[in-house]
């Protein structure tokens, strides 16, 4: 009597009334239906094999699902969940903190630097060079020995000496801010950079300074100016690494898991080695607002190829402009003390778009995600004159800095500052402050870079993206491929190439199965893969 299975099957088969429309089935498969509707759809599906078939057939390709799942759940790549590694991360963090302590100590006891450094981090080739910060705005430290360009001549004796001792480990630091800026520290992992710039740094074996940069200064917003650069880094790659160093610097002061992510990501061999000394007495880290607190933003591509981001699981969406820049600075009174709660307004003169923010308790304001254009900055605070500056031209990916000294007076009185007198414009690579020969060379590079951007900018149409936690890859038309490690606050353009062939054509799919392994499909169609998070790419036959 084997009827029971048959009966059950028959019951399950009872025909459904009318098929569901494609919209509901799509929303069901994408899990965007409210619970009540979802139950209705499920009820229909349980009775209708056709609709079940449709749902099953219409599922996206498997890789895409992985991306979607990882975007929905903040779960990071599997290896981070391993306790040993997590503790490793904690240990690395402790080391970083210890190093800072050492720096502080050394500052007050200059004579003992070497021994201390050696004591804390034994068996590591250590560079520890006190940088005397001149009163002028900036200086440049040595270029690495391996650089093909011989600009060592211009360096300070001290550093030359140090470089001779530790040729491959000499850190390069520059400061683009004005006089007050001083201290910086550069902590570097000893292994080759593992996760920084894709593409451009391919194969430079000797320890590109990726890793940790930490900026400390009288003016916290200048934390960005710390850069680290390692030995075997070839000159043309300098700009890219500068940019990356900046990205990392901005991330560093953030609390919690982000720092953890970052340090693990950056250091395969997480033994921070050398450190540059600090000069500034006050240590105030610039905490960047926004992004990093939100572990996993959601991403989407608009129908016109723009990129949008949601930090609250899809409730609100904001446009992300990859070429955006920022304007930040400190509001001070005539005596140099910071002014909190001053109302700062940034107006885009081309679009009349306004952004308003109050300066924080440390006098700092920062407007990020500004599209390139001309801006006017207004600062108001009762008891002081109305401060106006502009127009200021903000270029692509430029971080402009403005330190405003308000004068005591009535708000109704306006002090207008002519453009670009006290405005310190600091591009991503801080080029202004390089030595002259270096400057020329990099300016040419920047010109090329800008041209590249100019070529791509008008048609920045994205067509595919892959996100894991705060890391995101976005690809689009005309071989546009951008990479961000910090949830879209900073972007690096990546140009995959292998054996002299560059990726061309439109990128239609970007898949990253984990942090290291990715695949790009173009319309041509070509398939490119990477096994090291975009440092090197291989074209699949």
């Amino acid at each position, binding site marked *: *009597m084997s*009827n*029971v299975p048959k*009966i*059950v099957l028959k019951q399950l088969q009872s025909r459904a009334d009318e098929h569901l429309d494609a919209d509901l089935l*799509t929303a069901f498969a994408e899990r965007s239906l409210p619970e009540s509707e979802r139950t209705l759809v499920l009820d229909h599906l349980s009775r209708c094999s*056709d609709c079940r*078939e449709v749902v099953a*057939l219409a599922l996206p390709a498997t890789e895409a699902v992985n991306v979607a799942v990882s975007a929905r759940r903040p779960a990071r790549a599997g290896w981070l969940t391993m306790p040993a590694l997590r503790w490793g991360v904690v240990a690395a963090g402790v080391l970083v903190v210890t190093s800072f302590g050492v720096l502080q100590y050394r500052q007050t006891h200059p004579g003992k630097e070497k021994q201390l450094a050696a004591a804390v981090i034994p068996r590591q080739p250590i560079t520890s060079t006190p940088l005397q910060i001149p009163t002028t705005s900036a200086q440049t430290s040595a270029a690495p020995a391996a650089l093909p360009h011989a600009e060592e001549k211009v360096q300070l004796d001290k550093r030359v000496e140090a470089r001779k001792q530790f040729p491959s480990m000499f850190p390069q630091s520059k400061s683009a801010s004005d006089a007050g800026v001083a201290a910086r520290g550069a902590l570097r992992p000893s292994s080759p950079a593992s996760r920084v710039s894709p593409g451009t740094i391919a194969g430079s074996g000797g320890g590109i300074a990726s890793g940790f940069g930490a900026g400390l200064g009288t003016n916290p917003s200048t934390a960005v100016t710390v850069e680290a650069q390692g030995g075997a880094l070839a000159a043309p790659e300098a700009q890219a690494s500068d940019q990356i160093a900046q990205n990392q610097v901005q991330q560093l002061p953030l609390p919690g898991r982000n720092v953890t992510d970052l340090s693990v990501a950056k250091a395969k061999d997480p033994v921070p080695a050398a450190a540059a000394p600090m000069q500034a007495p006050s240590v105030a880290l610039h905490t960047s607002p926004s992004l990093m607190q939100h572990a996993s933003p959601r991403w989407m591509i608009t129908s016109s190829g723009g990129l949008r981001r949601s930090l609250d699981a899809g409730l609100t969406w904001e446009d992300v402009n990859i070429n955006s820049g920022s304007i930040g600075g400190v509001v001070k009174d005539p005596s140099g003390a910071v002014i909190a709660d001053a109302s700062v307004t940034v107006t885009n003169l081309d679009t009349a778009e306004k952004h308003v923010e109050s300066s924080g308790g440390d006098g700092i304001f920062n407007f990020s995600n500004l599209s390139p254009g001309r801006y006017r900055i207004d600062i108001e605070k009762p008891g002081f004159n109305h401060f106006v500056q502009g127009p200021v031209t903000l270029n692509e990916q430029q971080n402009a800095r403005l330190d405003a000294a308000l004068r005591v007076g009535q708000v109704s009185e306006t002090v207008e500052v002519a453009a670009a007198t006290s405005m310190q414009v600091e591009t991503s690579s801080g080029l202004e402050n390089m030595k002259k020969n270096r400057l020329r060379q990099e300016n040419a590079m920047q010109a090329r870079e800008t041209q590249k951007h100019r070529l791509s900018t008008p048609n920045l149409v994205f067509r595919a993206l892959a996100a894991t936690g705060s890391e995101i890859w976005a690809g689009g038309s005309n071989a546009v491929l951008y990479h961000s490690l910090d949830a879209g606050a900073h972007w690096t353009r990546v140009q995959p190439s292998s054996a002299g062939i560059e990726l061309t054509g439109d990128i239609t799919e970007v898949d990253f199965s984990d942090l290291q392994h990715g695949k790009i499909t173009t319309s041509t169609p070509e398939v490119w893969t990477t096994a090291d998070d975009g440092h090197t790419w291989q074209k699949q036959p």
Partner: protein
Amino acid sequence: MPVTKPISAAVQSAVSDLLAELHSAGGCEKIGLTLDSFATILCDVAAKYLPPSAGHAEARTFLLTLRVEELALARACAGGDNYAWEIFLTRYREKLYQSALRIAREDSAARDLADTLYAELYGTSTRDGQRVSKLASFTGRGSLEGWLRTVLAQEFVNRYRRTKRLVSLDEESKDGSQFAAPDPEPLPPADSRLESATAAALAALSAEDRTVLASYYLDGRTLAEVARMLGVHESTISRKVDKLAKSLRKKILAGMVQQGMDRRQAEEALEVDVRDLRVDIRRSLAQESSSPPFSKEKARSN
């Protein structure tokens, strides 16, 4: 899309509240959708899915969850806007062919499938002398890309049914029962009770559970596929299937006892375990997942 349902006041007020915001969020200006026409679209969509009793807040939440940008694009395409079509083709042309290929698993069929859909998207059918594009029925509940895949899948399933009907009529009549063991005997009288107990047990399950059972036992999908359909993890489905099979047997048994069968009789009627469903299915589909207790049952049923 013609207005099929009357639009409630709550919906209308929510639409007028959010219209400006959604209009700019959807980038309607560029693709030639005026505020008025977009308002009509939003009202239609809301009226289609919201119950007439829905309040203002409910309508508002609903509108905010729509994918307005893709909705606007689709409707602008349906309205014949050139720029919208340009965007649409750049974004979706290749994906459409790729999806078609994944669904049809064969190049020429995939091309055929995608071309048919294109024709429908452009609007070959006419109503009152007006070209009607299939895109006009997109409502932005899910992504446009997902919708295109779903429409392709629907078309594919329709076709599959059609061809099958042409091939063999008795196959169609046997459709579904092909998985069960051939059993020409009429059902014995006790079966009415068994049947109603089974129906009751199934009806007591949640819609999701029934869908899982149907997908797994009836359609013979793998656990992984079922999991992806429902957007949950595979292990969840695996546990669920095991639990369901066990509890179903218990419930049917209890149901029959309740209807006046004595325990032994009921056991006898259930002599073949409900879980043996799997055995029959496995035979025809070579389902890979197996668990030891069932293989014993299989031997018994044979």
